[in-house]
C-alpha cells in the first residue's frame, strides 16, 4: 500500500491527490533534489545514501546513457563522451565558451547553442542537462512513490534569458513541469528561513567547486529582491585543491607526474583540504607509479597561508556587489554561506571579518540551495495555505533596450529592475512615408549597439504612411517571473502590432556580463561622447535629406548664387557627418540651418499661396 506522510493540521490531501513537488539544484559540479516531507525539507539520497549527483553524463558507444558517479569515474578513460560541467555551455554559442582548446570535447558550432559530439551523435547542452534532470526526477519519484507535480529549479542570479530558457527547455525535455526558476542565492536565503526573519539586507556568499558568486538580497515585507550580483566564473574549491597539489609536488621535489599519478595526487590534495576543515593537521602519504613518494604533513595554518590569495580574490567581487547596491559591509544584516568550499575555516573567518559578523553556516552548504528550492516548490504546488505564501522578486542582470537611429541603444528596462516587470516607451518614424520599423532588442550597459549583445530582431509592418515623426509606435517590454522577455510593438493610430518572445539565439557568459558591466562604468565618458556624436549625425542626416527633398520640389525658388550657398552647406554637412568631431558637426548643422532659412521661408510662402489661390478673403 501507499506510504503516507504527515500533513500539516487540516491539510491532509484526498487519496491520489498528493502534490509531489521537488526543488532541484542543477549545479555545475553536482546536482541535488530535495522535497518537503512531513513538513520538513529533506534532500533525497540515492540507493547508496549519497545526496550529491555529479553533474556528469556519459554517452556510451553502446547507446547507454550513464549519469552521476559512474559517469564521473569513466571521465579519465572516455573523456570525449563524458560531459562534465555542462552548465557552462547552457545557452551559449561556441564563441562564448572560454578555453575550448583545453577541454577534451569535440565542439560543433550550431545556430543558437554549441553542440558536443559524442558516440551518440551531437548533443546540445540542453539534452545533457535533461539527462541529469531525468536522473534526479526518477530518484525523486522512487523516493516519493509517485509522479511529480512539478519542480523548482535554481539558476545563478546572473543567468540571462538564453540560459534560463535553456534550463526550462531541459526540464521540459526531462518531463518535468517547471513551477518556477529560482535564483540560487534567493533559494539559500529561503532555506535559512530569512523570509521569516526581520527585514533587512543579506549577503549570499557562494563558493562552489569551480565558481564563486556573491549576491546582495533585500528582504522587505516578506519579499526578496536581488539588489546586486557579482562573482568569478573561474574560482572555486578546485583551485584550493590545485594549490595543495602544487605544494605536494614542489615540497616532495618530484618532477611533473603522469596522468594517473596526477589524478592520485589531486585526490589526496582534495582529501587533505577536506580533513583540514575538521582537524588542525593532515598527513599525506602517497606512493607514485614512478616510485617517488610523497610523505608530508600539512597544518591548517600553512594551508590557510598558501590559499589566502584565493580567499582574498573572493572579496573583490564582494566589494563590487556591495558598491553596485550602494552599500557598505556594515549594512548587511546576515551572511549566508553556500557551497562546499565555505566549510574551510579560513574562508569563514575572512567573510566574518569582512562583514563584521559571524556568517550563517549551520545548514549543510552543499544542500542549502536545493532545500530552499524544495520549500518554494512546496508552496507553489499548493501544499501550504495561502496565508503563508510569499512572493519572490529577482532582478534583471543587464539593461534591456532597443536600437534607435544612429546605432544607439535606448534602455527600456534598466539593470537591476525587479521582475516581473513591464515597461513601454514610444518611438516614431524617421522618414516620411515610412511603413515598417525594425525592432532590435539588445542587452547591455553601453550606449552603442555594437557594444551590447543582440537578443532578437523583428519588424513592425503596416504602419500607415505619415510624415516623419508623426507615427506613434509603442514598444512594450515584459519580463516574466522566470526572467524571460517578450517584446511587442504597436502602432497606436491603427493598432497594427508585432511581437516576439525573446528566445535569444544565445546568451551572455557570466564573465561577459561582468565585463560588460565594467565596460559600462569605465567607458561612461566615452559613451556619452559617442552618443552625442551619433545624435548629431542623425540630426545632420535628417536635415540633409529634408533639404535635398525640398530642393527637388521647389528648387526653382532659388537663383543660381543662392542655390550655390545651399549646395555648399549640404556638402559641408555631408563631410561633417563622416567626421568624428561633434563640435564641427554641430556647427555644420547650424550653418546649414541658416543657409536654408530663407529658402524655407519662401517655400512656406509658396505653399500658403497655393493653398489660398483662387479663394476670396471672405471664404477664409
Amino acid at each position: 500500500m501507499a506510504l503516507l506522510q504527515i500533513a500539516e493540521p487540516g491539510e491532509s490531501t484526498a487519496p491520489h491527490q498528493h502534490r509531489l513537488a521537488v526543488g532541484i539544484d542543477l549545479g555545475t559540479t553536482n546536482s541535488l533534489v530535495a522535497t518537503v516531507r512531513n513538513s520538513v525539507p529533506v534532500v533525497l539520497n540515492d540507493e547508496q545514501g549519497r545526496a550529491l549527483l555529479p553533474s556528469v553524463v556519459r554517452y556510451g558507444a553502446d547507446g547507454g546513457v550513464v549519469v552521476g558517479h559512474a559517469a564521473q569515474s569513466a571521465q579519465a578513460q572516455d573523456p570525449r563522451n563524458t560531459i562534465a560541467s555542462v552548465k557552462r555551455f547552457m545557452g551559449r554559442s561556441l564563441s562564448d565558451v572560454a578555453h575550448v582548446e583545453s577541454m577534451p570535447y569535440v565542439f560543433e558550432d550550431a545556430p543558437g547553442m554549441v553542440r558536443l559530439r559524442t558516440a551518440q551523435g551531437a548533443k546540445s547542452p540542453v539534452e545533457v542537462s535533461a539527462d541529469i534532470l531525468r536522473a534526479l526526477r526518477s530518484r525523486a519519484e522512487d523516493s516519493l512513490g509517485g509522479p511529480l507535480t512539478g519542480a523548482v529549479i535554481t539558476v545563478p542570479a546572473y543567468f540571462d534569458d538564453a540560459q534560463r530558457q535553456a534550463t526550462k527547455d531541459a526540464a521540459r525535455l526531462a518531463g518535468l513541469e517547471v513551477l518556477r526558476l529560482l535564483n540560487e542565492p534567493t533559494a539559500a536565503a529561503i532555506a535559512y528561513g530569512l523570509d521569516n526573519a526581520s527585514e533587512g539586507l543579506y549577503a549570499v556568499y557562494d563558493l562552489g567547486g569551480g565558481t564563486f558568486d556573491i549576491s546582495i538580497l533585500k528582504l522587505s515585507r516578506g519579499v526578496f529582491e536581488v539588489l546586486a550580483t557579482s562573482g568569478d566564473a573561474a574560482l572555486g574549491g578546485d583551485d584550493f585543491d590545485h594549490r595543495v597539489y602544487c605544494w605536494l609536488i614542489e615540497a616532495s621535489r618530484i618532477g611533473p607526474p603522469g596522468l594517473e599519478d596526477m589524478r592520485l595526487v589531486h585526490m589526496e590534495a582534495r582529501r587533505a583540504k577536506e580533513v583540514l576543515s575538521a582537524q588542525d593537521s593532515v598527513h599525506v602519504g602517497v606512493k607514485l607509479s614512478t616510485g617517488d613518494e610523497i610523505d608530508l604533513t600539512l597544518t591548517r595554518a600553512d594551508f590557510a597561508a598558501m590559499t589566502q590569495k584565493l580567499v582574498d580574490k573572493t572579496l573583490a567581487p564582494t566589494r563590487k556587489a556591495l558598491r553596485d547596491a550602494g552599500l557598505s559591509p556594515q549594512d548587511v544584516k546576515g551572511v549566508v554561506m553556500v557551497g562546499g568550499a565555505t566549510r574551510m575555516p579560513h574562508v569563514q573567518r575572512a567573510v566574518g571579518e569582512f562583514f563584521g559578523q559571524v556568517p550563517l553556516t549551520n545548514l549543510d552548504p552543499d544542500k542549502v540551495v536545493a532545500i530552499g528550492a524544495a520549500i518554494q516548490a512546496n508552496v507553489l504546488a499548493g501544499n501550504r495555505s495561502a496565508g503563508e505564501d510569499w512572493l519572490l522578486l529577482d532582478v534583471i542582470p543587464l539593461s534591456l533596450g532597443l536600437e534607435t537611429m544612429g546605432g544607439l541603444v535606448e534602455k527600456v528596462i534598466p539593470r537591476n529592475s525587479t521582475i516581473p516587470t513591464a515597461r513601454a516607451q514610444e518611438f516614431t518614424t524617421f522618414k516620411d512615408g515610412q511603413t515598417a520599423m525594425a525592432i532590435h532588442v539588445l542587452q547591455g550597459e553601453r550606449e552603442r549597439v555594437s557594444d551590447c549583445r543582440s537578443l532578437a530582431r523583428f519588424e513592425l509592418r503596416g504602419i500607415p504612411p505619415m510624415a516623419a515623426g508623426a507615427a506613434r509606435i509603442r514598444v512594450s517590454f515584459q519580463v516574466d517571473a522566470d526572467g524571460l522577455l517578450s517584446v511587442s510593438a504597436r502602432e497606436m493610430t491603427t493598432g497594427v502590432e508585432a511581437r516576439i518572445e525573446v528566445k535569444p539565439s544565445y546568451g551572455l557568459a557570466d564573465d561577459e556580463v561582468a565585463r560588460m558591466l565594467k565596460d559600462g562604468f569605465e567607458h561612461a565618458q566615452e559613451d556619452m561622447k559617442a552618443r552625442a556624436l551619433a545624435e548629431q549625425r542623425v540630426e545632420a542626416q535628417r536635415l540633409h535629406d529634408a533639404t535635398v527633398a525640398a530642393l527637388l520640389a521647389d528648387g526653382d525658388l532659388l537663383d543660381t548664387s543662392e542655390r550655390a550657398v545651399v549646395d555648399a552647406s549640404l556638402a559641408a554637412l555631408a563631410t561633417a557627418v563622416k567626421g568624428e568631431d561633434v563640435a564641427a558637426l554641430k556647427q555644420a548643422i547650424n550653418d546649414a540651418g541658416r543657409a536654408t532659412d530663407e529658402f524655407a521661408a519662401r517655400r512656406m510662402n509658396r505653399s500658403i499661396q497655393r493653398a489660398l489661390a483662387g479663394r476670396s478673403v471672405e471664404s477664409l
Partner: protein
Amino acid sequence: MGVTLTEKAARHVAGFIAKRGRGVGLRLGVRTSGCSGMAYKLEFADDLAPEDLVFESHGVKVLIDPQSLPYIDGTELDFVREGLNEGFKFNNPNVKDECGCGESFNV
C-alpha cells in the same frame, strides 16, 4: 483498544515534530472520500480538541476524534521503507477491502 505506534514510527514522528519546531502530537482519523469510501488522515496536531481521545505510544501522543475511532480502532501505525521511498503505513484490522494503492479503504 485504541491506536498504537510501532517504536520506529514513534521515533520518526518525534523526530519530525522536533524538526518542525512545534506540535503536541499526531492526529489520526478518517474521512469519507477516495475510491473505496474512506481515506486516512495523518496530520501534525498543534492543539488538543476537548473531544479528542488521546493515546500515548512510545512517548508520542496520538489524537483521534471519537467519530473516527470505530474505523481505525486497533490500528498499528508503522514506519516502513520500500526502496527509496519511506513513510507511514496503517495496519488496520477493520479494513475489509481497499483500493489498489491502499490510500482509501472500506470497513
